[in-house]
């Protein structure tokens, strides 16, 4: 188990990686990446049971699927700093001939990535398939997934949500990044989705909330509670309230930084708010 301080340091370093990556290529998605940093750092370093190294099939270890693939800067930073590939490789993000594609892909063989994502709404189905494979293999490890709240506007999710409950896929924890923002504005303006918790419950999921998804302790506690709720006949949904752009003050509480990179000056401000702890790449 990692000390909370160590995880907090990692959070700060990952946030630096995210803004530096998107700044360098003047493209990418910092907002959602920053908002889910506590979640993904906790998941990979405190919650999941992971083997050393990487193999595609992931037998006898927990698996994670990123459905909202545009927050790839976060995913890549967490994977690299967990040891899946060299940290220096982060500097190739979105460049020609890189394994770090704009959206995650298996095509270039990047360790840690098991499915391409980016075209939204597909990840939950894939996670269900992987969870079913675990059951067939008598592998008691869990499958985690992350989805944007705006992403839930894609209909395929609801096919998957229906299937998982109807077939008791209870080794799956689907987490929703509930930041209330999407490209065109607030989700309540673009397409109001109502009460997500009630919707998941109505579909037959065991649903819980993490009220402060940018608080490491709350995230860890919440995900540990979610784990306890697996294996009881229902898939588990965690709705996690986050702030898009969290950790960089001028990127918070707006959709403006969903897919926009900071300029030189903005980068310096962002970095000054997130101290270098483990060494920049």
């Amino acid at each position, binding site marked *: 188990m990692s000390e909370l301080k160590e995880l907090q340091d990692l959070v700060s370093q990952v946030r630096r990686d995210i803004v530096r990556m998107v700044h360098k290529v003047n493209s990418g998605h910092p907002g959602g990446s920053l908002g889910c940093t506590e979640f993904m750092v906790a998941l990979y370093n405190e919650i999941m049971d992971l083997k050393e190294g990487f193999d595609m099939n992931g037998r006898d270890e927990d698996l994670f*699927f990123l459905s909202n693939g545009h927050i790839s800067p976060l995913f890549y930073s967490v994977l690299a700093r967990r040891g899946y590939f060299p940290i220096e490789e982060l500097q190739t993000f979105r460049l020609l001939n890189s394994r770090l594609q704009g959206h995650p892909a*298996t095509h270039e063989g990047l360790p840690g990535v*098991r499915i391409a994502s980016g075209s939204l709404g*597909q990840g939950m*189905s894939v996670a269900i398939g992987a969870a079913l*494979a675990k059951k*067939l*293999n008598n592998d008691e490890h869990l499958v985690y997934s992350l989805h944007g709240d705006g992403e839930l506007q894609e209909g395929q999710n609801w*096919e998957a949500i229906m299937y998982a409950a109807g*077939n008791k896929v209870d080794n799956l924890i689907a987490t929703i990044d509930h930041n209330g923002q999407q490209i065109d504005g607030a989700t309540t303006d673009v397409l109001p989705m109502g009460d997500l918790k009630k919707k998941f419950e109505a579909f037959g999921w065991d649903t819980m909330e993490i009220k402060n998804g940018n608080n490491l302790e709350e995230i860890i506690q919440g995900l540990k509670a979610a784990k306890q709720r697996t294996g009881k006949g229902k898939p588990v949904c965690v709705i996690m309230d986050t702030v898009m752009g969290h950790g960089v003050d001028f990127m918070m509480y707006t959709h403006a930084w969903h897919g926009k990179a900071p300029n030189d000056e903005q980068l310096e401000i962002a970095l000054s708010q997130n101290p270098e702890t483990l060494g920049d790449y």
Partner: protein
Amino acid sequence: MKKYIDQGKKDTRSGYGAGMTVLGRTNPKVVALCADLVGSLKIQEFINENPERFFQVGIAEANMMGIAAGLTIGGYIPFTGTFANFSTGRVYDQIRQSIAYSGKNVKICASHAGITLGEDGATHQILEDIGLMKMLPGMTVINPCDFNQTKAATIAIAEHEGPVYLRFGRPAVANFTPADQNFEIGKALLLNEGTDVTIIATGHLVWQSLIAAENLESKGISAEVINIHTIKPLDEEAVIKSAQKTGAVITAEEHNYLGGLGESVARTLTTNYPVPQEFIATQDTFGESGTPDQLMEKYGLDNKAIEKAVLGVLKRKA
């Protein structure tokens, strides 16, 4: 010419079902998924014998493609089953991202392909699926010609690592290839040797091509008939070799001429050994309701249409 005997009419989708039964007994990694069309896909025996390896996903094809991709993670070989229309056009982006681009070992098995789906009409008769699937990098595209070949193809694709689109049909058609055939992906089969013209056919059009070749023989025209069960990767060597011998080509398929077998053959010939070619295919149109035989006649997909096309292409021969 070598005679092929119709061993009795059978639907190719039953060949899929029979192949799945064999795989259920021989390959513990094979799992089947279906989107509410078990009866149409003829996989009840597989389900009865392997209930734990069958996933009924309901009328939710997008979810089915994603679940299939996920099942490969953990080492399984998923075979998805629904009509060709819902196996391709309806879920193109799911196949593109979660299966093809992700390099997943999913077998997309599609029944009721083409116009011979019949009375249900154009909403269900996809004539674009070969094109959609062959354009995806890394996708293998197979369209076997009869029951025996569909069964053999089903069994063979389980041994192939990578995504495969396997296309078959609804109506009972002549079953004329050997029951014990060895199915080799990407290997064209020379069914009849000829010297005047080459008929390159796939799926239901192979039998029609053999009938056409017999009729042509009585008119003194020697037609070579090639069964291209694998449209991608195309057996280019067999196509070029035959074109060099006969100097004229007909392609025959139950598909739009845009994007189908004919275009793949034309590309191969244009870049290697150009010869006159005529396309037996639908002419950029939707289908309609009718019996399979009526539709094949109306849309110019039967042996008479092939014969006519042969007479046409022979006039263009140098």
